[in-house]
């Protein structure tokens, strides 16, 4: 399949497809970061994660419509506000869900999978009733459209670079919060031993609720980024949930660095393969490779050595 292209062409193709995969990479990283916190740290299998992401996407869409209708002069900057709103909305819903549902199930991790699946069905139907079954698209401000010409054959989309920078920023802040702040230490203490953490005076219920909220909030931001690569519909989130779980498992469930590395390798493999074959075969090959590697190395790329 490489035979028809010269070496220079191939180089350009890889770079271009690589940058085209940046937004996919960003969505994966943000989704997977949230999931790595919820699944990797808390052990909760959040099947409704895609629906939290889509909530963020709908919030972005509503913000964009609002700015278009009432504040057209500020339209170029709406995206920043939209992301903050998406984070708040998804995070708040996440905390509500934790309080109603998840906190009863910490001792039964497999059951969280079933319960959150039920939740995702209800959320999908709620989106369908509120926003309609048709998919909606978000209009981007002028400065995000177009691309940078690096060389004659290489073009880089601006919105990809923007989302990429944003992802890096969010990732660094999450890593800081989890590993350097007092609150992050409490989260890790609760995860390792809930009873002991409670005994030394940590309010485990509060920590759980905020951790779950944080993970869902990041999913909401992922939804904002998602509006750039696809149209938003009630069931769009479901398509990403398996990929995201694979990203987290492939990276090693408790490792943030592993999550980023695996999101990068999976999105780039898929994006590069898509140039040479149909999208569905690219996806099949990527997923097969991931499953194959996981069978050889079940603990993922970057495994923490933890005694159980």
């Amino acid at each position, binding site marked *: 399949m490489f035979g028809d292209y010269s070496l220079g062409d191939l180089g350009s193709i890889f770079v271009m497809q690589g940058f085209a995969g940046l937004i996919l990479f960003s969505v994966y990283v943000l989704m997977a970061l949230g999931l790595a916190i919820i699944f990797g740290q808390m052990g909760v299998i959040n099947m409704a994660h895609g629906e939290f992401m889509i909530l963020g996407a709908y919030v972005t869409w509503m913000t964009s419509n609002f700015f278009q209708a009432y504040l057209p002069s500020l339209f170029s900057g709406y995206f920043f506000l939209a992301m903050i709103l998406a984070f708040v909305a998804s995070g708040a819903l996440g905390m509500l869900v934790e309080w109603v549902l998840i906190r009863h199930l910490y001792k039964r991790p*497999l059951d969280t999978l079933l319960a959150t699946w039920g939740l995702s069905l209800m959320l999908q139907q709620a989106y369908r009733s509120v926003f309609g079954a048709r998919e909606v698209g978000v209009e981007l401000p002028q400065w995000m459209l177009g691309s940078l010409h690096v060389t004659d054959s290489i073009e880089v989309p601006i919105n990809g670079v923007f989302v990429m920078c944003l992802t890096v920023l969010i990732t660094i802040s999450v890593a800081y919060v989890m590993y350097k702040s007092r609150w992050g230490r409490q989260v890790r203490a609760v995860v390792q031993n809930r009873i002991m953490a409670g005994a030394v005076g940590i309010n485990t219920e509060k920590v759980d609720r905020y951790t779950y909220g944080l993970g869902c909030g990041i999913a909401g931001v992922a939804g904002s980024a998602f509006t750039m690569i696809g149209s938003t519909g009630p069931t769009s989130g479901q398509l990403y949930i398996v990929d995201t779980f694979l990203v987290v498992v492939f990276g090693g469930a408790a490792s943030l660095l592993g999550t980023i590395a695996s999101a990068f390798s999976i999105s780039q493999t898929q994006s590069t393969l898509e140039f040479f074959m149909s999208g569905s075969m690219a996806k099949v090959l990527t997923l097969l490779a991931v499953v194959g590697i996981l069978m050889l190395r079940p603990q993922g790329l970057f495994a923490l050595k933890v005694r159980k």
Partner: protein
Amino acid sequence: MTDNRFVNRSELIGILVLAVFLVVVLPLTLDVFRLNLVAKYLTYAFVALGLVICWGYGGILSLGQGVFFGLGGYCMAMFLKLEASSVENTKIQSTPGIPDFMDWNQITALPLFWKPFNSLTFTIAAIILVPGIFALIIGTAMFKRRVGGTYFAIITQAVAAILTILIVGQQGYTGGINGMTDLRTLKGWDIRPDHAKVVLYFFEVGCLFVCIMIAQFVRHSKLGRILVAMREKEDRVRFSGYSVANFKIFAFCIAAVFAAIGGAMFALNVGFMSPSFVGIVPSIEMVIYTAVGGRLSILGAIYGTLLVNFAKTSLSETFPELWLFGLGGLFIAVVLAFPNGLAGIWGDYVQPRIDRLISSRKPKPEGWTDGSVADGAPAE
């Protein structure tokens, strides 16, 4: 629990009640259309039955049962499709004698892996062996490396996603998103008219009871007890000298084969097979049936499947908006409040009352008076 027979008395009564319900009550009260719907629901009951062994007893949650359901169904559908695409039936095609969707996708010769499906014997063997061997490979790769629990669930889910994308993408070989439609005859016997549907229904119920008996046998044998022990305390079973991985692989393979038989029945009864029964959503729905019926109860899983599907059909016919809320809510309620499903409710609340009714009719010790139940009153 001292006797080693594979059905004890109360289970035998339960199985007989189910048999009367499926063989006598339903065919007498429902028209052929509704009976065919029940046949469709019962194909999922095979999957639910497998999940009771694999998930309820073995503790292995597989979110990829749709894969095996699909493999079994596609094997059957390939045979039926080949029979429906005889040269006379397809003479308007540019290449007669191959299935119509291949002709639409500019394929001019039957692909090699389709050829053996001309034989019914091979097809029946393939329905059992293809999913069985596939499950064996996945199970060996995962369980020998002590991957289990949530990881296993996620990987089986990924496998379901891969197979769906593959089937949809390879339209020329598999029929794509529409699946294999227009299945007509089985060895010259038309499967579409009403009387054939009734015959197929009874055949399916027969197969279901064979599977129930196998499940009962597994459950009551030493094997079943090791599975339970493994679910509760895996390390202790391993230290006692049992190969935990092999037992897990066995449970997973049994579940896969049951699911595949269900899939083959689906192709026969419903008359088509499509990737919408393979993917993640149907796979999780199949887990829902088991959870609602009771993950520890063989008969509960079957009632659960029937109940959820009846509810689905009637609710989605009358209130299409509410159906997903209902299903989601039901699922959350079952997980939060009744982890053992219908069977748990039955065992906790209904069974003790019936037992009390029955035992109050037995001869009492002297001086023991109980006037609450009249003698000779039927227990049911």
